Structures are given as C-alpha cells and as structure tokens.
C-alpha cells in the first residue's frame, strides 16, 4: 500500500476538473428533467396520460414547468405550423442552457401525414437542433417515456449536445429559419 504522503500528487488540469464537475452536473441534470410542454400539435393529447397517474412521469424526476426559463426540455409535441415555429424559436432561445429538444410524433421527422400541407413544416432539425425523436402517430405513453429514458442515457454518454450545435452552427440555423419563415420576428395585428 502506498503512503499517500509520498505519492506525487496527480495534478489535474483545469479542463479535466471542469469535465469532472460537468459529469457531476450531468447526474443531476439527467435525473431531474423539467419539461416545457409546448403543445404544438396532436401528440400533446398523449402527454396527460404519461404525466398523470397511469404512467407517472414524476417517477423519473420529470415534471411540467410553467415557463421556458425554468425548463430543461423543450417538448415539441407534434406537427409545427409556420405560426407555431416562429414562437417555438422564441421559446427555444429563451431557455437556459443546457437545454434539450425532444420531438414527438412523425411530423417533426419528415412531415408525417401533413408532408404536402402548405402550413406545416417538414423537418424540424433544419430550424432547431433535435436531440431525441420519438416516432409514431401518435406515440404511446410507453414510447414517450422510452424517449425520455433514451435522453437520460444520452446525457450520460454526452451525446445530447444539440444546444452546443445551435451555438456552433447558429448562422446555418438562422439561414434556414429565414428561408422558410420569411422573417422570424412575429408580426400580427396585436403586436403593433
């Protein structure tokens, strides 16, 4: 047994220390994921069962939150019309980091049943980075919960870094948003 007194100290660099702390933080982050339920579409109707007593999301430490600032996950529940996408980008940019995006249903993946609609976008990850997709129309509560467990596993493996991607490729995302939306800023008769 080595005496600790004479073993040379294992000097950790600052980056390593940061990484260690980040891992500690990851434990807390993945065990307490707060949802921002933005009911963008139909899949929102399967969220109450998965949140309430039947499937009880709170077991996993998850719960709904009232405002984007408090939340960790932006839950995009279903198709996104242009009008919603504008507000979704607002909401996403308001959330505090690290933030994750979970997209439910097949519509954010490739447009789903509304692939040829004039009002619904086809692919969400052109506009904001998506970490987990849950396919299905509509996904069962089981698969919704499974998606969240995948997200937790991904946080542990450090693969869920969509928010970093948004920083790195900010220009590209903004470009896409402009192309589809025309203008991201909300204009309507009430925002005089």
């Amino acid at each position: 047994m080595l005496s600790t007194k004479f073993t040379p100290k294992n000097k950790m660099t600052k980056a390593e220390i940061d990484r260690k702390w980040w891992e500690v933080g990851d434990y807390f982050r993945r065990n307490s994921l707060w949802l921002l339920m933005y009911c963008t579409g139909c899949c929102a109707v399967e969220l109450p069962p998965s949140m309430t007593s039947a499937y009880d999301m709170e077991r996993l430490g998850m719960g709904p939150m009232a405002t984007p600032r408090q939340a960790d996950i932006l839950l995009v529940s279903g198709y996104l019309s242009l009008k919603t996408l504008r507000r979704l980008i607002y909401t996403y940019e308001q959330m505090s980091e690290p933030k994750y995006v979970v997209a439910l249903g097949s519509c954010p993946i490739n447009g789903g049943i509304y692939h040829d609609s004039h009002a619904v976008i086809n692919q969400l990850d052109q506009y904001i980075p998506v970490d987990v997709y849950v396919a299905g129309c509509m996904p069962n509560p089981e698969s919704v919960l499974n998606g969240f467990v995948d997200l937790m596993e991904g946080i542990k493996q450090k693969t869920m870094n969509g928010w970093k991607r948004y920083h790195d490729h900010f220009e590209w995302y903004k470009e896409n948003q402009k192309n589809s939306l025309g203008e991201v800023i909300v204009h309507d008769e009430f925002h005089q």
Partner: protein
Amino acid sequence: MTNSINNLELVKELVSKTTTILKEENIDVQQLAFEVNTCDIHHVLSVLKSAGWKQLSYLSAVDWPDENKFEVVYILFNWDKPVYVQIRTKIDRENPSIDSILPIFPGAKYYEREAHEFFGIAFPGNPDYEKQLILEGWDDIPPLRKDFDPSAYSDRKFPSREYPQDYSVTDEKNHSLEKRAERKARAERLRTGGKKQ
C-alpha cells in the same frame, strides 16, 4: 319527427314567397338546400331569422373554377323546428365580393374573415375582414382555391428529409421478397435484443 315534413313545407313556403329559387334540393328529412340570387341573400336570411332560424351554423365558400364562380354557403338552423337550411349563391370568381351579413348574424364575423383569408372573397360591411386570422405572412394566392397547389408550395418552402435508401414500393429495384425477409430478420433482432440465436 312527426312534424318534420310540415317544417320542410314551412321552409319551402317561406323561401319561395320571398325570392325566386334557382334550385332546390331535399337532402334528407331534416335538411333542405336552396340556391338563390346573390342580391336576395340578405332578404332570405332575415326572413328565415325572424321565422326562428336564428342560429348560423356555418358560413363558407366552394370554389368552382370550371364555371368561374365561387359559391357562398350559409347554413341556418332552428332548434324548435329542427330543419337545417342551406342557402347558396354563386358569385363571380374575379374580384369576388358579397355584402357582409353582420347586421343579421353578428356571429358571422369570424366566418367571413376566414372565408376572405382562404378564398379571397371580400365582405364589405365587415369592419376587419381583411385582417389576417389564421395564416401569418401569407405570400401566395388564397390556399383553398382550386388552382393553389399545397404540395408545390411545401416543396418550395420547406426542405424535406432525404433518405439514403428508398423504401417506397415504386422503387425500380424493388425486390419484395428480399425486403420482406430483411424486415423479418430485423424484427427478430429487435425482439431478441440483438442476440444471436
């Protein structure tokens, strides 16, 4: 339902007294449809309203590009004498315009706004029919017209996902049996959790 026939007769009598009926249809025992001249719409609606048809159930338009017409539809209902009455009229497709029925049915306000938004029909008399209601920043012809193609619009505006492999059945190199076997093997793999058997 014993007196539903009487009700139908009553409506027919009311409408035929007030205006000339271009076309009449009996849809079922509790539903009637009349096509009338555009100028008579207000008269017919107010007569029906005072006779008890005071609920405006629906207001919308139908596009008939072959005749170069829009057809505006009003559906009225009377809860005491249960007959649905469709009143239809055709207006020109170029510069379509029909007077608002707000003075008769205040509830028509948003229906008219929506009809303007989706068909481009003007409703003079409705104070803000020209404001956007459902769409935001629309940059094309009104979407419910028949000559609007949503698929082309979608392709133009929204990038679609590109798949490395084409799964559609119209694939030229479509080997159905092989694909089915592949799918079966994949399902088996998923079921057993990737373990070899």
